[in-house]
């Protein structure tokens, strides 16, 4: 799998001339700035994989991150995933740490492809930035690699 784009942000802007809100400004709760993991990743498989299998893998991925956050008593801002194949069949998953909502294009259920583009964002209050990156990346890799077999 090839990582096309990866960047994480913090709330502190690099340019000091910009507005620099404190955690208190934002949340009236010190120390409650979220960690953000945001990535676009190409998932390329040696054989075609049904969209339904990709759905199941990404649901497991979101469940794993959600459950980890709950276990660590972190607050999930949101976890959102948008995945599409080359025919623009797509699936959208979203969770706020409770249920996981899925919506898909009409063709998704019957679609299969060897190439998918996965867009993933997790915004979670509580963990450090690097820790969130590690946890989310691990879950994504684990589930997508499992689809190779």
């Amino acid at each position: 799998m090839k990582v096309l784009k990866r960047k994480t942000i913090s709330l502190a802007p690099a340019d000091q001339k910009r507005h620099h809100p404190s955690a208190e400004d934002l949340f009236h709760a010190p120390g409650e700035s979220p960690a953000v993991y945001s990535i676009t990743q190409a998932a390329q498989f040696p054989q075609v994989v049904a969209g339904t299998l990709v759905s199941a893998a990404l649901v497991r991925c979101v469940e794993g991150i959600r459950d980890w956050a709950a276990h660590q008593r972190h607050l999930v801002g949101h976890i959102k995933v948008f995945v599409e194949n080359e025919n623009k069949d797509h699936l959208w998953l979203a969770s706020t740490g409770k249920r996981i909502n899925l919506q898909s294009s009409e063709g998704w259920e019957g679609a299969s492809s060897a190439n998918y583009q996965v867009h993933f964002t997790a915004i979670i209050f509580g963990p450090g930035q690097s820790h969130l990156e590690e946890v989310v990346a691990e879950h994504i890799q684990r589930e997508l690699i499992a689809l190779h077999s």
Partner: protein
Amino acid sequence: MQLVIFGGFLGSGKTSLILSLAHHLVNREGSDKPSLVILENEIGEVGIDNKVLQAGGFSVKELFAGCICCTLTADLVTTLNDLHEKVQPKWVIFEPTGLAYPKKIIETVNQYGKGIERIVVIGVVDAERWEELTEITPGLIEGQVSSGDLVLINKCDLVEPEALAMIREQVRGMNPKAEILEVSATSGIDTRIWGKVDEGSQA
């Protein structure tokens, strides 16, 4: 140009509600002319909501960078003025980040925006997480609710009637002047609710 701003915490359902409103407005206008543009500002380098809205067939512009709490209002104003000069859509729907205070956005748009005839602010409340969020981020939630002309209590199907009544009461306390409605974006929105947004836009 009519500007509709959706305020609400992360995961409250703003994007789903925007999809519903956008369909309503486009169907009602019934014209090939680009009458609707959606502006998106998301936390994180990768936009998800913009892809969802584009997949719905809508024209979406992303606003990049800036402060997530006031949503880089200079960039927003530049984009709005550019739209006014070059595209002249009838409607612009703006989805700020889930950490934004709509009041700051309104102040800047009112001061520097061109060609904006009317601003409607919709506050979106996540009924399922109301108790949790008002405990953890009370200032932000109140800031998002208090600016709304209309407050939509979303995910009302996921809480008990007693809890919903309590949420309504607390929302009313934060924003006595707003109309407050209970909705479920995933179950479909009564178009009469969107009629409240576009009433007064026919003139």
